[in-house]
């Protein structure tokens, strides 16, 4: 069993969704139940494989890659099929593995118009392949391919099943991301030729980039920064995000918030920083600057929103700012906080989008001024919204706290070579950002959940949480509490992995 998992585990996790999707292709469109079942079974199978991988994972060796597969793929250009899992990717893999089946369950009776369960669920499964693949790929080109695979399904999901402005939002999302990845692939190629030995192997590259000139390093890092930074998204590239989130169907928003944004931050931790540590130190103050601008700008943006979903989208910009701030400190503390921030944001914001989707389904609007009194009309949903808002604003004891607080703390003492004064200033600004966060979330809660039921909804009974919603939401709610109470669930996995990502940097400082 362990041997089988060792050699086939990651591959199975990546391609099981494709198998499911291929199966669904041959099933006629009318058989909706069968489609839902196939999608659920294949996404659960992926989750099962990932759980087994986590079960046999050697946590003491979290810094070294495990379950490594290394096969030749495109020999002509020296591209290999290398997969591997370490302490940084494992939490994100588990998050992906969990979110997708929950989304399928939520879709059971929440299929957005124009329905078509077959096409919708096939897209969800292809998305899963792309996401899982990105987190396990250890070859730059393989990484790039998986990174790109997620674009198409998300484009169609927003464009076909989205809201009023869906076509605009879909193409905006696509063009922004593609622009970043075009520069990213040029950077990867430049890296291939500049490294002292031509290879795309992410494991080997940190050792081979020492001789690259400083200017070239900075430019190559800049190309990757565009690719990853747009995906995160960092200020000022964030403008695609509010549109995409607002227009996407609920499941699309959830996947986008919970996993897709993490592809960008993960790219920094996995690729950019370990491979080009020198350039990372040069870029870090600027990344930190954009991160804190994102925190404040996102928060102010939230205060100005009149649409609940758009507000949550802007809060994502702010939260990803904390994650990027943690990354920009280039310390093990900061990177741990960043990975924690990714997981926590995935759980909490994913949950918030689920709730927003259910509110929309019942009220047919997300205009904050038309909502109100949710606690009276649908008390359970109201409480869940309150709980998630608390988690999102960083209440200690819930997961969100462990994403924000250590990131702020980490900027008190950034890595050697970074200006302490500058990062302490960032720290103060970021801390002020948490106050804003409390402000907009509590205000949101006050206007939607509290108060009395608005005149127009009198006599319209609002359905409270139903069973597919309970099934889809309970695991997330439980995890938010569990990680909040016992953050070592994540830190325990990431700590040694983060050390590995920073090893090239430490070497640089030592030598």
């Amino acid at each position, binding site marked *: 069993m362990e041997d089988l998992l060792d050699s086939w585990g990651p591959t199975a996790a990546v391609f099981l969704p494709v198998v499911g999707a291929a199966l669904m292709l041959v099933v006629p*469109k009318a058989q909706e139940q069968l489609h839902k079942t196939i999608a659920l079974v294949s996404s659960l199978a992926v989750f099962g494989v990932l759980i087994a991988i986590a079960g046999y994972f050697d946590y003491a060796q979290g810094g070294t890659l495990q379950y490594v597969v290394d096969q030749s*793929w*495109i*020999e*002509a*250009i020296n591209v290999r099929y290398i997969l591997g899992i370490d302490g940084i990717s494992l939490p994100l893999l588990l998050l992906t593995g969990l979110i997708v089946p929950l989304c399928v369950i939520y879709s059971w009776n929440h299929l957005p118009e124009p329905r078509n369960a077959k*096409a919708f669920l096939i897209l969800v499964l292809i998305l899963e392949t792309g996401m899982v693949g990105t987190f396990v790929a250890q070859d730059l*080109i393989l990484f*790039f*391919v998986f990174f*790109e*695979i997620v*674009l*198409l399904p998300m*484009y*169609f999901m927003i*464009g*076909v099943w989205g809201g009023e402005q*869906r*076509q605009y939002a*879909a*193409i905006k999302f*696509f*063009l922004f991301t*593609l*622009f970043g990845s*075009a*520069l990213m*692939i*040029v950077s990867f*190629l*430049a890296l291939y*030729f500049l490294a002292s030995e031509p290879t795309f192997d992410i494991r080997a590259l940190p050792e081979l980039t020492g001789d690259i000139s400083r200017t070239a390093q900075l430019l190559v890092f800049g190309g990757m920064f565009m690719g990853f930074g747009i995906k995160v998204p960092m200020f000022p590239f964030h403008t695609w995000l509010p549109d995409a989130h607002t227009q996407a169907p609920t499941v699309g928003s959830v996947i986008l918030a919970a996993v897709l944004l993490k592809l960008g931050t993960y790219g920094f931790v996995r690729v950019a920083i370990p491979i080009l540590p020198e350039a990372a130190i040069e870029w870090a103050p600027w990344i930190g600057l954009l991160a804190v601008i994102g925190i404040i700008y996102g928060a102010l943006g939230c205060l100005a929103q009149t649409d609940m979903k758009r507000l949550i989208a802007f809060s994502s910009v702010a939260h990803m700012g904390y994650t990027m701030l943690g990354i920009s400190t280039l310390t093990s503390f900061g990177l741990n906080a960043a990975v924690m921030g990714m997981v926590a944001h995935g759980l909490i914001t994913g949950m918030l989008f689920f709730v927003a989707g259910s509110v929309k389904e019942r009220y047919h609007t997300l205009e904050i001024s038309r909502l109100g009194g949710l606690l009276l009309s649908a008390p359970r949903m109201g409480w869940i919204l309150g709980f998630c808002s608390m988690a999102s604003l960083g209440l200690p004891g819930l997961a969100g706290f462990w994403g924000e607080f250590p990131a702020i703390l980490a900027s008190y003492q950034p890595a050697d070579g970074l200006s302490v004064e500058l990062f302490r200033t960032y720290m103060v600004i970021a801390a002020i950002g948490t106050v804003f966060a409390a402000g907009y979330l509590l205000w949101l809660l006050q206007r939607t959940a509290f108060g009395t039921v608005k005149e127009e909804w009198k006599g319209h009974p609002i359905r409270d949480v139903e069973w597919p919603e309970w099934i889809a939401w309970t695991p997330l709610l439980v995890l938010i509490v569990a990680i909040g109470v016992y953050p070592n669930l994540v830190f325990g996995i990431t700590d040694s992995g983060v050390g590995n990502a920073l090893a090239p940097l430490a070497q640089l400082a030592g030598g």
Partner: protein
Amino acid sequence: MVDFVTPNIDYHAFAPEIILLSTLVVLLLVDVFSERSQALLPTIAGLGLLAATVPVLTLAVDGADRTMFGGAYAVDGFSLAMKALFLVSGYVVVLLSTNYVAEGDYYEGEYYFLLLSSLLGMTVMASARDLVTIFVALELLSIPAYMLAAWRKRDAKSNEAGLKYYLMGVFASAIMLYGMSLIFGVTGTTILAEIGAAIQGSLATEPIVSLGIVFVIVGFAFKVSAVPFHTWAPDTYEGAPTPVTAFLSVASKAAGFVAILQLVVVAFYGATDAYQPMFFGLAALTMTVGNLIALRQTNVVRLFAYSSVAQAGYMIAPLAVAGESLGSRDQAISAIVVYLVVYAAMNLGAFAIIITVARKTRSAELDSYGGLFQYAPGLTVLMTVFLFALAGIPPLGGWFAKFVIFRALVTPGTGAGYVLAVLVGVNSVIALFYYARIAQSMWMQPVPDGDTTPVRVPQALAAALAITAIVTLVLGVAPGLVGDLGDMADFVALP
């Protein structure tokens, strides 16, 4: 005075051309003597093309390079790879034409006769290593194409297409011939390898040589519709019968690239200062102008005309750095061969869909694609695959083609290479916008006339779709296959 020596003819090396020629004769005879066997014509043409690929395969397995007629005619890795590409895409074009020609009240026998004549010219082109042979091959492949473009003879647009194509083509031929005569005048030979040897030396900087090179390249820039010599393409593509448009945008363009590659790599290679800046300008202009104009098209065939102009720009780009070193030359050859193969599959596939959909909607306007997903989900998914493959989104075939172009541009490490690489990147984003517009129309917009009867896909078109879709998808996941083909495509007697 040299005595005439009977040339030594290698029949194995000539077998593909001989089979094509025999098929041509059979086609004519069947058409003339048997009124009732019109339905057999596409089958005969298709079988002839497939039969011609057999000797190409045996020659490839044999692996030995063969040259004839004092070096004027060569059968090497490159020529075999390109012949295979011509024959297979010719076969797909026959599949695309079968129903179109039979149902449209056109002359059938002559259509296939001309199509195969043009393909014969292309296979000869792939082996031509002599200025005169190149010119003969060019005319053999062009003249039938002029007539095919005007095949819908009762339609004014088709007449315009044929005439415009003919006039521009003849004009380009004249410029090219003039350039060839200059080169012959200076070097005293028409054999490419001998010209190459002459140009390696002091002749490389001779102004008259540069002028000759520029003229010859301009002639072929018309053929591959590079900006600013692209003006014939949109009108010709729109007016010509759609299968002929597919043929022009894939096979005919590929033939132009084959000629350019042979001339640059074998004959002009030493004169880097003459061709590198020229290709840089052509590539930058072609991809940018093609893409920008494509953004504003409302007719899908016209949109594809401009998209194919832009695609030609990507393929020209590696030539701008080919002269840096022998390594970058080989990468440029390999990149262009890979791109041509992948592009043929993607583009023919897209045209197969356009032809299939037009059978129902009788239109190629972008609006007529509205809501296609509702009544033809299979065709929509396939068209989406082809569109995003053309845009270069992994894991569909096109990404690897773009990738090798990037690689060829970045390898020499020159400023020009990096600038072009970034330009290709930016242009890919622009291109995505109009490819996505078609997808948007199919997936996200309502059916314009409310008619949602399913689209019937005839057998021949289904076969064409299957071939192109499988190639596009397989090459995306296992690009090593076409990568090896690119590496195999070497030239005889080159260092």
